[in-house]
């Protein structure tokens, strides 16, 4: 019996908690992609860079706060800096919309042209980020490292396996939950949120109803910038901040959005967790778990891994491609904001 609990702790430690954390980060990112897609109707290739930009601003403010000696121990200071990062990113995103996207929107450019424009924005933002903060790893995490460390857990429970919960993981998961609840409340229960859904559903009729498209677009960018900054910061806190990594994150994020059905926010969230857990489940080495679950004395030679750890990121691409080919509308049928 104790072996089963040990196996469960092992899975919890290396599979469930990291999966929930990474899934939350992807879900927040995918929500941003989905919002742009359903309101502005294009796939935003600059979203990864938007996340990096938001995280960068947050980091800069965090450093400032740290220098001033401000802290909210045991929570990371970055949480305090987050609102500033969000505001800065909103301003920047709106500036980009005004100076770049607005023109093409007015000309009713096709989604592909918008996509290419977003590639241009991606370049510019990427360059700006590297110009300001450099291409290297930045560490900005402070505060307590663990809520429960593996050692404490073992001492408390007397188990062989530890179940550690890092501060960043708890913060990520909780923040994601709060943000998602707020977002859905906004979309479903406020007039502005409903007008956004209406505009996404039927642009012409929204115009006839007197919904101001400029306002809808603006609100969308505000939400997108907010989500991107939070997702980017949480990812940076949990792993580390490196501009290049955010560009790589773009594909898992698209994968999440598409797996869930682009344009469907609930799907984006589900997609985030589907991608995160598939990556982990397929590349997890089950050797120890199986050892716990089989009678003593049986030796297992291999690591009992379905795919090598190297293929972790490839998993999301493979899922993405399979979903696109087998069921391009996504698992949860898209196009409903």
């Amino acid at each position, binding site marked *: 019996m104790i072996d089963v609990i040990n196996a469960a702790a092992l899975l919890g430690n290396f599979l469930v908690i990291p999966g929930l954390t990474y899934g939350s980060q992807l879900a927040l990112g995918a929500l941003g992609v989905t919002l742009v897609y359903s309101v502005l109707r294009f796939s935003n290739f600059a979203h990864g860079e938007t996340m990096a930009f938001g995280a960068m601003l947050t980091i800069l403010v965090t450093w400032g706060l740290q220098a001033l000696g401000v802290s909210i121990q045991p929570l990371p200071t970055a949480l305090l800096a987050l609102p500033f990062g969000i505001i800065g990113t909103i301003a920047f995103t709106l500036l980009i919309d005004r100076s770049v996207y607005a023109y093409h929107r007015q000309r009713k450019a096709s989604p592909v042209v918008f996509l290419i424009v977003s590639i241009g924005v991606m370049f510019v933002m990427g360059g700006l980020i590297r110009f300001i903060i450099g291409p290297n790893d930045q560490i900005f995490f402070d505060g307590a490292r663990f809520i429960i460390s593996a050692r404490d857990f073992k001492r408390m429970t007397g188990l062989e396996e530890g179940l550690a919960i890092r501060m960043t993981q708890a913060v990520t998961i909780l923040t994601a939950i709060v943000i998602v609840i707020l977002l859905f409340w906004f979309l479903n229960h406020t*007039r502005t949120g*409903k*007008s956004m*859904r*209406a505009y996404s*559903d*039927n642009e*012409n*009729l*929204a*115009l*006839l*109803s*007197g*919904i*101001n498209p400029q306002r809808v677009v603006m609100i969308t960018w505000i939400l997108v910038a907010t989500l991107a900054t939070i997702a980017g910061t949480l990812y940076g806190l949990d792993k580390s901040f490196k501009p290049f990594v955010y560009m790589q994150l773009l594909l898992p994020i698209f994968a999440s959005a598409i797996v869930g059905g682009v344009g469907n926010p609930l799907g984006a969230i589900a997609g985030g967790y589907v991608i995160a857990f598939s990556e982990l489940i397929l590349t997890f080495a089950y050797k120890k778990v199986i050892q716990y679950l089989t009678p003593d004395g049986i030796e297992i030679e291999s690591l009992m891994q379905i795919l090598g750890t190297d293929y972790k990121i490839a998993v999301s691409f493979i899922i993405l491609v399979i979903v696109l080919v087998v069921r391009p509308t996504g698992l949860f049928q898209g*196009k*409903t*904001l």
Partner: protein
Amino acid sequence: MSFLIGQQMTGGYGAADILHDCTIGVDKGEIAVIVGPNGAGKSTAMKAVFGMLPLRHGQVLFDGEDVTLLKPEERVLKGMGFVPQTHNVFISLSVEENLEMGAFIRQDDIRDSIAQVYDLFPILKEKRKQPAGQLSGGQRQQVAVGRALMTHPKVLMLDEPTAGVSPIVMDELFDRILEIARLDVAILMVEQNAKQALEIADKGYVLVQGRNRFTDSGEALLANSEVRRAFLGG
């Protein structure tokens, strides 16, 4: 001079004109019906009156005021309501949210208006939480009309409100439209079911290739043998 009138409208979607010198009007409490063959430009004429089509000539007067240059949403504010022929509900929004969006430009309390729409179309009250996309064709048309009524328009423009619904539902919709007209609302309507529509119409327009072919009272058009032969199937 009618309450709402599009005078000598000429214009189209691109280089070629679809409407030629076309005039359409309606008065308060009156029902005006536009009939004509497919592709005659009926929907185009409605769009022109509502400001969704650039006019090369002609103007639109509403309540004595020239609104030719106003945008559709500005016309909504003035008191015009429009139910397009297709895509006339927000399919992913619930029935009640559809009505709320219809009242989007209003800043005051809209609960009374929603209640009024539910009085007019009781089935919608039952289905108020359902996404409009899940409703039957007739119920959707009710949502569409209800959405346009939310701003208490002085003139309601309907483009084929009975398209694709069964005859029973059609009769009921016509009854409702008559009811709305009794509230002193001007109703301008395009109809495929020309006979039934002209029966309830005070005024009728027969449009052919973007031009006024016949204009008369509904009764007179029904009595006109040429109109009967060519447009009403005998």
